[in-house]
């Protein structure tokens, strides 16, 4: 569904006369293929290129070199952009930056009207989206009355209403408290059971993406590793280089395995108790 071929991207194109002016590309020769329905995590330090790549995927930015194809459409072709922007939706870290309506209903309706959703079906689509993300609010409720977690669920509802083929969450949970964060992640996975879409999840917190199909690790604008969480988890040095830390129980389980002690993959307090008390 997404095919990135040897993409290089500069926010400011390097000066032709002054090649080595110190401008480094935000992305350098990146190639990546993501089939429809996959859950992929983009991981890496601040400034490593994760967000830049996600901006290339819906044509907010265009590659300086190379190509980005979304369902066969080239993002560099102007005529493809409406289809691409509809297919790829992004939720950012601060929900308030992407809320436009006064009420919950208006906010969801905005995107739908924009893409020419049939007027008579908008109301039912709003109700569908509210229910889908489990937002306990009717459509008349003012957006300003929502909590942080509810606002982020609304942002999710607003983009899911547009039936995206690919959803990008760019640190979408970083402003939420632990409870709201857990609920948001649970909601997301509930939704994925009902509506299929490709999920690209950008985060600094590995515990949110232990269930991903694939981790893609970025460093200095390059993809330096990709693979299943089970495989990459073992390379703690690599992860640390990418600014990542495994959750406590994962680190503990890895260390115990090194000592030849067999431990369950999904270790928790109860399983540790079982291990020690049998």
């Amino acid at each position, binding site marked *: 569904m997404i095919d990135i071929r040897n993409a290089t991207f500069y926010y400011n194109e390097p000066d032709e006369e002054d090649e080595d002016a110190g401008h480094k590309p935000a992305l350098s020769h990146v190639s990546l293929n993501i089939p429809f329905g996959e859950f992929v995590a983009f991981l890496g330090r*601040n400034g490593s290129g994760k967000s830049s790549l996600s901006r290339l995927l819906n044509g907010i930015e265009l590659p300086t070199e190379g190509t980005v194809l979304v369902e066969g459409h080239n993002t560099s072709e102007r005529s493809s952009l409406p289809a691409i922007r509809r297919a790829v939706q992004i939720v950012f870290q601060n929900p308030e930056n992407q809320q436009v309506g006064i009420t919950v209903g208006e906010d969801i309706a905005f995107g739908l009207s924009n893409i020419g959703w049939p007027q008579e079906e908008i109301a039912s689509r709003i109700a569908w989206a509210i229910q889908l993300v489990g937002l306990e609010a009717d459509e008349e409720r003012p957006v300003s009355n929502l909590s942080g977690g509810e606002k982020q669920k609304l942002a999710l509802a607003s983009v899911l209403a547009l039936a995206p083929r690919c959803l990008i969450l760019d640190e979408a949970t970083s*402003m*939420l408290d632990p*409870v709201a964060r857990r609920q948001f992640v649970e909601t997301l996975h509930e939704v994925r059971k009902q509506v299929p879409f490709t999920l690209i999840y950008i985060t600094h917190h590995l515990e949110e993406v232990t269930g991903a199909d694939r981790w893609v690790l970025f460093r200095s604008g390059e993809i330096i590793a990709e693979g299943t969480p089970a495989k990459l988890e073992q390379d703690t040095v690599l992860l640390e280089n990418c600014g990542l*830390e495994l959750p*406590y129980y994962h*680190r503990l389980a890895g260390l115990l395995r090194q000592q030849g002690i067999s431990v369950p993959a999904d270790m928790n307090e109860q399983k540790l*108790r079982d291990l*020690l008390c049998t």
Partner: protein
Amino acid sequence: MHIKLNDVTFTYSKRRRNKPLAGPFVLQHLGLSVESGEMLAIAGKSGSGKSTFLQLLKGFLAPSEGTVELDATDPHLSRRPQVFDRVGFIFQYPEHQLFSTTVFEDIAFGLQSAKLTAEEKEVKVRAAMEAVQLDYEQFKDRSPFELSGGEKRRVAIAGVVVLEPEVLILDEPTAGLDLQSRTSLFDLLHSMNRQRGMTVMWVSHQLEEILEHASRLIALKEGQFLADGHPTDLLSDPLLLEAFGWEEPPALAVTRLLRKLGSVPSNEILSPQEAADTITKLLSSRQISV
């Protein structure tokens, strides 16, 4: 600086003459005393009143009832708002507020009203950059906008540190930062705390971070302090955890479990490595005895 809150209540509704204070109340009857040099974390859901509470300490807001005292002075009552200048305030995502063309100009902005000579200004900016571990010569002339996320945040913090606050308040300072940037930000806060005796108060949603760095935790719920104490005690208190819907940080749970089985010194929290060593020892001693 000693901070004291006496029975502070806050509402955004206007007070009507001869009428009792009308709600909704964002904060209710808060009492608090914070000594110089504390590392104090504040936790609670969005909407629990954390930001309002912090803004009272900086004087952006005044209490509707009760008083806020800084070193035994109520700056509102005594009409000495300049006392609030001794409190530094760093908003969420402070790097969004950078605006100057160079790092030097951005950091020096807050010094404008102080009528300093160019030399004096340079000394102060240099010291602030040193405090946030940004090399003066390397960074002073660069545009803040071409720096990495962690560096930008350092510039923003330097812009507050340059005013030499006695108390530093930060609203979710590690949100959106990677592991290395989070670690070095806390190294920085600890060193300013130790060297200058600066009080650090910060809002955090990360219980692990609180456990690792705070000497005191205040938990706010619906405008009231539900708990105030040492993070190790509060974050293993089942009633409190339930009230906030929190999960006990794994480091605490594992340490408690291993302590029950022996050989873990009290007041120590085990890292994964230390826990793994303890578990390995426990299991191998059993095999021998079997």
